[in-house]
């Protein structure tokens, strides 16, 4: 029989069709025959029509598929017959499958799905390892290094570099500041990307510094109405004319953010090509065919040592990382931990169901025995049982998909900023995954009971019907399942507890500023190249903002606090020789006089900037505690002088007038670094511009944004205002991944605890039911109800303790893997494990006590008669 006929003859519908065909066929025959030999003659010649039909049906036989369909229908009937059991089973599975489906869709989007670059797995990023000179072990590289590497490396087919940039589009319409990136002309070929419209710029254009720009699809739609005539048009970027030559496709993005709107030629000036301290470039490279990441690492480390041999800080190595890891960032670890956790929850759910089904199978011993006696083979029984399980998990999976959708909306917010905005959907990959886990689940929770079930039948089903004491062996499997699920639950609870602890710690971190009612935004100052005019403008805009009703104070700073932007420099303390300087790096910030008062910084000693600090040859500086601790341990830094910049003989000596308590300038979850603050009015020797504005308000910060814009535009109507955010938003954004993963993991853990205790309860109460007879005998022989109570609770306790022990070991392993996940994750196991143990024992005690008490209340007389 061909596959097509198989399909045609499948299922109940075709069965009915076949029946009516047969009926029709036979009646046709009889009619024709009746025309010749009359009605009765025809009947006689035909023989027994009913028997014929029976024989024909026998000839059809049952196909395997039809058998399966029958089993499935039987399974559905079982589901309907036990609504309580089925509801619990389906709900458990739905949660398990739904969670896993949602988690998988996020993992798929962030870690599995191909990146929008050609052969993206061959792309790597290169960073400087400056740990030797006291800086970070993964620092941005320098254009000079890019230049050297590109000429001398042997492992990459090409290397491209990108630099941060801001672009203000002016001219037509409101001035708008957009995220931009300066990139080398070979970036496009290294990434293997094509523009959607127009062309990309060439290396020649990059070298010559031709003013051309590529724009994003978003900007193209937003500002240029999606017109193809934008190609060749001249736009004003940062007050200079640029020609738009291409539009990048919608799905294109590249480090460091998804929302870059403009790419322009990097056109490194000559000095940048020789300066090995200008760390601001992202370097991306494509591995040559056949070169492994390991080989590239070795080769590049060597090359870098050579290239930077003459660097006054000493030579340094490099870090080579896969591009995918950089894009996924910290989310990668979080997602993997969560996926594991959700898998553990599903496992627990399956184990529970296996237990429930096993208990139920024991109750259905007779039914099985009858089936076996009537000729069902063991294989048939197992299939039938599995079909029942399959029905359960299919229903669970469908319900799970419904649950998965809201979970996916939640997870979308976890996709890192470095990647494209992802709308998580139930596409075929995700659906396939759910189907696969549903089947895996069926096998996990269905197979053991199915085998056990059919075994009952083969052995003694009819004979024994549940009488007598059940052997120890029959509990072996159930007991190990309980221990297993308890262990998983313990591991999850411990990890969840530790994460909560960490997150709590994160939230309690002292930011060094008062974060409520603090509005921030940026006013790029590229149009005020002249120092005097810049100072005048900044002071004027602060003055206008302060005048707005509801505003308490306003200040300016070169980098908005907490926004992870390093602007490091070397410095020299008075009396130090120049040789030690390579070890000394500090962040620098240029601030307005009212900055510290506005953000609520706290003074440790000395004073903040005040009205007496004017433009002069002897400027002052405020340092932070780390700086003081590093350089002036145990003594006061006040009055000491320092100097920084190019380390030549020019430059002011700054006198330290104050020490401020740490302000987390680099980000909520980043350790503070030595920082020097200077007053913008005295900072004419630096390029740092106080373009970040902070505003302390009495009212809801969002409500004054339009007024603030008007105030600033009243001074300069072309002044762009960008990145309007509150400090609260910045903090929330930075804590969102930890807070979400913590919330999820905690939810998973509680769910696991609930399931494990249900499982424990189920097994014990089943044991009580099973052993009613035995209990009766024992009591008749003199056991007190206290003995019985102890015996049952003791068993429950043993199982719990075993689970607890194994689970704690699992938890230690898991937390070790998790230390990479969060800042400040220092697993302090003792309180977490203690808390988890207490909770688990309490829950387990409840779960044991109820059935144990029932056992101890059994009346021996009834028990002995109990069947």
């Amino acid at each position, binding site marked *: 029989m061909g596959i097509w*006929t198989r399909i045609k003859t499948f299922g109940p519908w075709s069965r009915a069709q076949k029946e009516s065909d047969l009926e029709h066929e036979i009646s046709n025959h009889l009619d024709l*025959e009746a025309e010749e030999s009359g009605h009765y003659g025809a009947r006689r*010649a035909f023989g027994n029509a009913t028997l014929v039909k029976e024989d024909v049906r026998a000839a059809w*036989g049952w196909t395997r598929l039809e058998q399966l369909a029958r089993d499935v229908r039987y399974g559905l009937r079982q589901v309907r017959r036990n609504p309580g059991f089925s509801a619990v089973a389906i709900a458990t599975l739905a949660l398990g499958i739904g969670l896993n489906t949602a988690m998988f869709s996020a993992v798929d989007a962030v870690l599995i799905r191909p990146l929008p670059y050609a052969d993206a797995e061959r792309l790597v990023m290169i960073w400087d390892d400056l740990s030797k000179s006291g800086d970070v072990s993964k620092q941005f590289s320098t254009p000079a290094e890019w230049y050297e590497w590109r000429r001398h490396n042997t492992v990459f087919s090409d290397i491209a570099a990108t630099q941060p940039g801001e672009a203000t589009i002016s001219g037509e319409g409101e001035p708008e500041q957009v995220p931009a990136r300066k990139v080398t002309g070979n970036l496009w070929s290294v990434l293997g990307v094509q523009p959607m419209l127009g062309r990309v710029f060439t290396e020649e254009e990059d070298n010559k510094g031709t003013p051309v720009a590529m724009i994003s699809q978003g900007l193209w739609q937003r500002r240029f109405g999606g017109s193809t005539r934008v190609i060749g048009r001249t736009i004003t970027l940062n007050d200079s004319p640029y020609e738009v030559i291409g539009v990048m496709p919608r799905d294109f993005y590249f480090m460091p953010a998804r929302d870059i709107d403009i790419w322009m030629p990097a056109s490194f000036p000559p000095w940048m090509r020789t300066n090995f301290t200008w760390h601001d470039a992202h370097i991306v490279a494509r591995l040559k065919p056949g070169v492994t990441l390991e080989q590239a690492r070795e080769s590049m480390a060597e090359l870098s040592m050579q290239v930077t041999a003459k660097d006054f800080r000493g030579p340094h190595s490099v870090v080579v990382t896969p591009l995918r890891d950089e894009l996924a960032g910290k989310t990668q670890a979080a997602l993997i931990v969560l996926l594991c956790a959700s898998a553990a929850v599903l496992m627990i759910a399956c184990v529970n169901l296996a237990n429930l089904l096993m208990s139920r199978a024991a109750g259905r011993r007779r039914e099985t025995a009858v089936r076996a006696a009537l000729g069902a083979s063991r294989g048939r029984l197992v299939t039938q049982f599995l079909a029942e399980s399959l029905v359960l998990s299919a229903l669970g999976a469908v319900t799970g998909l419904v649950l998965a959708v809201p979970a996916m909306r939640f997870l979308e917010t976890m996709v890192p900023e470095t990647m494209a905005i992802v709308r998580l959907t139930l596409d075929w990959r995700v659906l396939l995954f759910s189907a696969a886990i549903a089947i895996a689940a069926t096998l996990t929770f269905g197979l053991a009971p199915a085998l056990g079930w059919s075994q009952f039948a083969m052995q003694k089903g009819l004979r024994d019907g549940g009488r007598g004491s059940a052997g120890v062996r029959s509990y072996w499997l159930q007991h190990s399942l309980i221990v297993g699920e308890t262990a998983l639950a313990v591991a999850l609870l411990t990890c969840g507890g530790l994460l909560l602890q960490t997150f709590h710690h994160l939230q309690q971190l002292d930011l060094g500023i008062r974060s409520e009612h603090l509005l921030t935004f940026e006013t790029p100052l590229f149009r005020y190249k002249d120092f005097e005019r810049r100072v005048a403008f900044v002071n004027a805009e602060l003055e206008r903002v302060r005048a707005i009703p509801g505003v308490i104070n306003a200040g300016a700073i070169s980098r908005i606090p907490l926004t992870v932007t390093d602007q490091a420099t070397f410095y020299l303390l008075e009396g130090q020789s120049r040789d030690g300087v390579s070890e000394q790096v500090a962040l620098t910030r240029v601030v307005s006089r009212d900055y510290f008062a506005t953000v609520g910084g706290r003074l440790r000693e000395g004073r903040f900037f005040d009205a007496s600090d004017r433009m002069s040859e002897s400027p002052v500086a405020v340092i932070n505690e780390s700086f003081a601790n590093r350089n002036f341990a145990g003594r006061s830094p006040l009055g000491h002088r320092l100097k920084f910049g190019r380390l030549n003989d020019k430059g002011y000596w700054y006198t330290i007038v104050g020490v401020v308590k740490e302000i987390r300038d680099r980000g909520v979850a980043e350790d503070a670094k030595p920082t020097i603050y200077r007053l913008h009015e005295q900072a004419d020797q630096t390029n740092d511009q106080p373009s970040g504005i902070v505003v302390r308000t009495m009212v809801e910060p969002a409500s004054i944004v339009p007024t603030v814009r008007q105030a600033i535009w009243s001074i300069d109507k072309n002044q762009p205002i960008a990145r309007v955010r509150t400090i609260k938003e910045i903090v929330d954004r930075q804590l969102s991944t930890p807070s979400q993963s913590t919330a999820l993991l905690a939810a998973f853990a509680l769910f696991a605890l609930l399931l494990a205790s249900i499982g424990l309860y189920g097994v014990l109460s089943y044991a009580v039911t099973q052993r009613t007879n035995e209990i009766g005998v024992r009591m008749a022989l003199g056991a007190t109800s206290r003995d019985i109570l102890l015996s049952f609770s003791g068993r429950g306790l043993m199982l719990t303790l075993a689970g607890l022990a194994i689970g704690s070991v699992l938890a230690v392993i898991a937390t070790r893997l998790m230390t990479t996940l969060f800042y400040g994750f220092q697993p302090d196991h003792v309180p977490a494990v203690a808390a988890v143990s207490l909770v688990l024992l309490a829950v387990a005690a409840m779960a044991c006590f109820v059935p144990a008490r029932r056992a101890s209340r059994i009346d021996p007389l009834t028990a002995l008669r109990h069947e």
Partner: protein
Amino acid sequence: MLILRTLQVGPAHGHQIAKHIQRSTDDVLQIEHGSLYPALHRLEQKGWLASKWESGDGGREFKYYRLTAPGKKQLVVEESKWKQLVRAIAKVAARAES
């Protein structure tokens, strides 16, 4: 084999096959027509026959059976088997007569 043989001529429905067998064996094989159907369905399951509903005389729909390629092969096999059997029986019968 008789059914396969009958259908070698061309497609036919159940009644036609029954009549044909009856006629061509000079009414020697008085099988009940009904027993034809289980056989037809068995042969169809094995893939030796294919069937199709078509309108026959008088506009009525009949289920026409047709020999398939594997069916034709099977017929050859069956026939050679049958001939062997006939020869064998004939030999035994001839020996008994002599």
